[in-house]
């Protein structure tokens, strides 16, 4: 099962390596990891998508909490949070295929951000499942290159990670 784990950490050098090291050393599988600053410049937020049963995730949370620079750990159920990921994707597109791809973009609410004689570069920001679908729609045209940020997530409603 996939779990979304949000971690607030002190914005110190070396924090990320402590966290990624902890995952590999304890045999936890990371699917994606995204990190960036928060409203407080001293604090960074890491969103981790990890695979494992409930026992594993409980251990992940507890072990993360033991790191001195970890301020807060919270894991979200999919229904509790909104999750997004940004993807840039370069697809083969000769002149005659462009219109079809434009239609896909329109329906998936993605954008064309670059164009050459034989490729189109698309940008999409959506939830994980939608990105998977988006990729499958474009596969027939030939995907040249793809880059993703990893998922970030925030809670629904008034709730925040620190409550």
């Amino acid at each position, binding site marked *: 099962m996939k779990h979304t784990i949000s971690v607030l*950490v*002190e914005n110190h050098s*070396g924090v990320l*390596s*402590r966290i990624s*090291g902890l995952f590999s*050393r304890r045999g936890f599988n990371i699917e994606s990891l995204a990190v960036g600053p928060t409203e407080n410049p001293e604090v960074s937020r890491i969103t981790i998508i990890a695979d494992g049963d409930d*026992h594993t995730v*409980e*251990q992940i949370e*507890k*072990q993360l*909490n*033991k790191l*001195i*620079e*970890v*301020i*807060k750990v919270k894991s979200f159920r999919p229904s509790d949070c909104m999750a997004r990921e940004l993807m840039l994707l370069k697809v083969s597109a000769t002149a005659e295929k462009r219109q079809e791809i434009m239609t896909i973009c329109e329906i998936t609410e993605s954008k064309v951000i670059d164009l050459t004689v034989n490729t189109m570069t698309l940008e999409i920001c959506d939830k994980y499942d939608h990105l998977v679908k988006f990729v499958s729609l474009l596969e027939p045209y030939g995907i040249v290159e793809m880059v993703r940020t990893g998922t970030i997530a925030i809670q629904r409603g008034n709730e925040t990670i620190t409550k």
Partner: protein
Amino acid sequence: MKMSASKAMVECLKAEGIDTVYGYPGAAICPFFDALLDEENTIRNILVRHEANGGHAASGFARMRGTPQVCIATSGPGAVNLITAIATAYADSIPIIAITGQVATEQIGSDAFQEADITGAAEPFVKHSYLVKDANEIPRIFKEAFYIAGSGRPGPVLIDVPVDVQKAMIDFSYPKSVKIRSYKPTIKGNFMQVKRVAKALKNAKRPLICIGGGVFASNACEEVRKLSEIMDIPVITTMMGISCFNDEDRLFFGMIGTHGVKSANAAANDCDTLLLVGARVGDRAVKTPLALEESTTIIHMDIDPAEIGKNIGTDIPLVGNAKDVLSQLLEQVEPMKHDEWVEHLEKYRKPRKFPKAKKGTVDPRQFIEKLSAAMPADTTVVADVGQNQIWAATSYKLKPGGRFLTSGGMGTMGYSLPCAMGAKMACPDRTSLQICGDGSFQMQFMEMATCVQYGVNVKIVVMTNNRLGMVRELQDIGFNGRKVSVFLDGSPDFVKLAAAYGIPAMRVTDTRSMNKAIDALAGEDRLMLVEVCVDEDAPTL
């Protein structure tokens, strides 16, 4: 006050009450050593003969004093040599502060001479670490390091200081308090959980307490003893919990585990409610946690929430500092009697019978048992790793006030002599008795020089079986007797080796020499060595 950062580092140690450090110098840590010289009357610097031993000595010192203690190494090879000690301390939750020199700030990352990314390399084994980039941070970092190492679940903290940072001038004042927003160990137990535990213990027909190293980390021996006494609950221990109870205690049934004693393992099998105190249920202590968890109500008391539910399912978790939580619990409990249960366990206690030893040898267990009867009550026994460790753990009959130290979690050969050295320096009035094998002795005998140089009285006992005995036994049992790389041919004559260091030594080969050696070991407090010749095929249990 304006001063060099290295002087400030020394001031930090003074402020933390450090009177002994175990260091090994090199270029990248020279400014700090130079500053230590100015304070040599306040802080003894003990030149160990290998950095790992400095770490182990600090560990022994810390375990006896109950406060974080300091080891020092230079950059690169010195720092890397220290890793074994850091990992050993981490596995047993021992508070040590490792201070390492580092190449100059502007050289970091350039593969400079003797550069090693020690904060990176040691990361899996530290509770926390610092690479000091700004000398002005030194007072705060040292204050935090000591606090982190010694509080919550204790553990090693590493401070890596580039040589140019050591030389910088700073304005020094030592902080009075620490503020780390992300680090707040739970000390008191949740009141409702404490009540649940009290009720579960009250309802139990066959309750049992299993103690681990956490009882020492939180100085909770007295509280566990009270609980056991008031509620008439038998007690067993992991290897790390040995010596909280002693072998004269009516309710104590010994060490649990693969290498444990029958009475302890039977107690674990037959109990209906098990209270774990500061014990993490490691695989050597409990081989089949699933079976135990199905048949027993498990109450798990630990300061580290991550230990709860990690190795064994728990019915009642209780997070907090053992001393505090047990005090809370003591307010909730009433006197009970479990005569039938205690009598049941008594049946498993059998006096040891020793087979006649082969000519030229003595039975190691008999030797240790006899020795323990003669030694002063408050002896600190430090066991190494291997058969000798189990012989010591199960045959040394502790008296009230005795203390047992060993590397439990990591099982690091070579731990015992430096640890015994540190323990002796921490408590000069107690006898320090070290027990090791002929294999492990050869990983640490260089520290005899340190003992001689600084007049540290350790009673060294080497169990010679000409084998890496523990592995030999594993090969005999698990590999059809195909013995490989366990023969210690080429070992020196240990009695002569000790003599080369000017250390009096004797060899035990029969009952007469055994009695003579025991008299000497139990007698005058001095540095000495006894080699005990034991059968190469002597079993561990």
